[in-house]
């Protein structure tokens, strides 16, 4: 939690989930510090991640015939939900369909979880990207998504 000196001082005195628990382990703390230092040093990881996001978004909308944008009114089974981050969701008509789609992807070597109600209001495949994904790995995912049959 980041904030004013007064807020942080107040939380140290009033936030039970910080006060009544063992201090974060040295290993976790040091790893987090190293991560912050790496993130602060450069944009490289973030721009790699965004290249992947843009590659996937474009390919999903232009190369996969079953997909439409959430705002469009055409009747395709997969809908790309609005996103501005490394999480892209393809909405499917029902929980059964999304489970099937996720299993079909796994048969093709892709781990894409099916997220269903009550976790979310509508069933969807939830794709999350990492900066370390290579362009050809994202292309392989797009090819696998093209093969989904529901």
């Amino acid at each position: 939690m980041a904030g004013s000196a007064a807020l942080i001082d107040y939380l140290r005195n009033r936030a039970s989930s910080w006060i009544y628990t063992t201090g974060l382990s040295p290993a976790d703390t040091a790893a987090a510090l190293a991560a912050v230092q790496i993130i602060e040093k450069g944009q490289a990881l973030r721009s790699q991640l965004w290249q992947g996001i843009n590659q996937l978004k474009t390919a999903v909308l232009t190369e996969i015939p079953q997909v439409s944008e959430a705002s469009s009114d055409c009747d395709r089974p997969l809908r790309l939900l609005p996103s501005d981050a490394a999480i892209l969701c393809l909405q499917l008509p029902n929980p059964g369909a999304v489970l099937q789609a996720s299993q079909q992807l796994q048969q093709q070597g892709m781990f894409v979880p099916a997220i269903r109600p009550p976790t979310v209001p509508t069933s969807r495949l939830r794709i999350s990207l990492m900066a370390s994904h290579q362009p050809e790995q994202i292309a392989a995912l797009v090819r696998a998504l093209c093969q989904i049959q529901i």
Partner: protein
Amino acid sequence: MSPYGWIDQALETVHRADWYRSVREIAGPSAPWIELEGQRLLNFASNDYLGLAGDPRLAEAAITAIQTWGTGTGGSRLVSGHRPIHQQLERAIATWKQTAAALVFSSGYLANLGTINALVGGRDLILADVYNHASLKQGARLTGAKLLEYRHKNMVDLRAQLARHRGEYRRCLLLTDGVFSMDGDLCPLPSWWALPPNMRRCS
């Protein structure tokens, strides 16, 4: 009958609703390629967005910290668990976020739970986005404050509920995720600052 028989019944209900979930084992570190229950798969299910969880620089920092301070801190931060590395991390976060200070909780879930409950209580109002993460929802419920949800990212609904209910309560907390983790969309935070100053609060 066992006094704990209700647990089996409750599990049965979860199964019947098709809501049953269980863990699946991944063999190695967080990475684009994983081995899930023996099958090699490309991983599109990780929140390690920058790919740092498997980074050797982080591993090395963690190993050095273990050699210096051991694996556990042996107490709460206020009693005997505070180490120089905590101070360093909190300073680094504050500098990065351009704030005067920062506090590191043991997880995001705990940070949200603890902060919300420190800020508001029974005499207060919470206005929360209906798509907020479970930690914000649960945190809000635990406060005992009046909890009202507004439609997802809907400033019109938020303002209307604020205008209608704000006067009845002592403090008001507006509660939203920055990045909504289920859809990946963003809260339009800048437009929040256009709210009248007496209605501002942010998480």
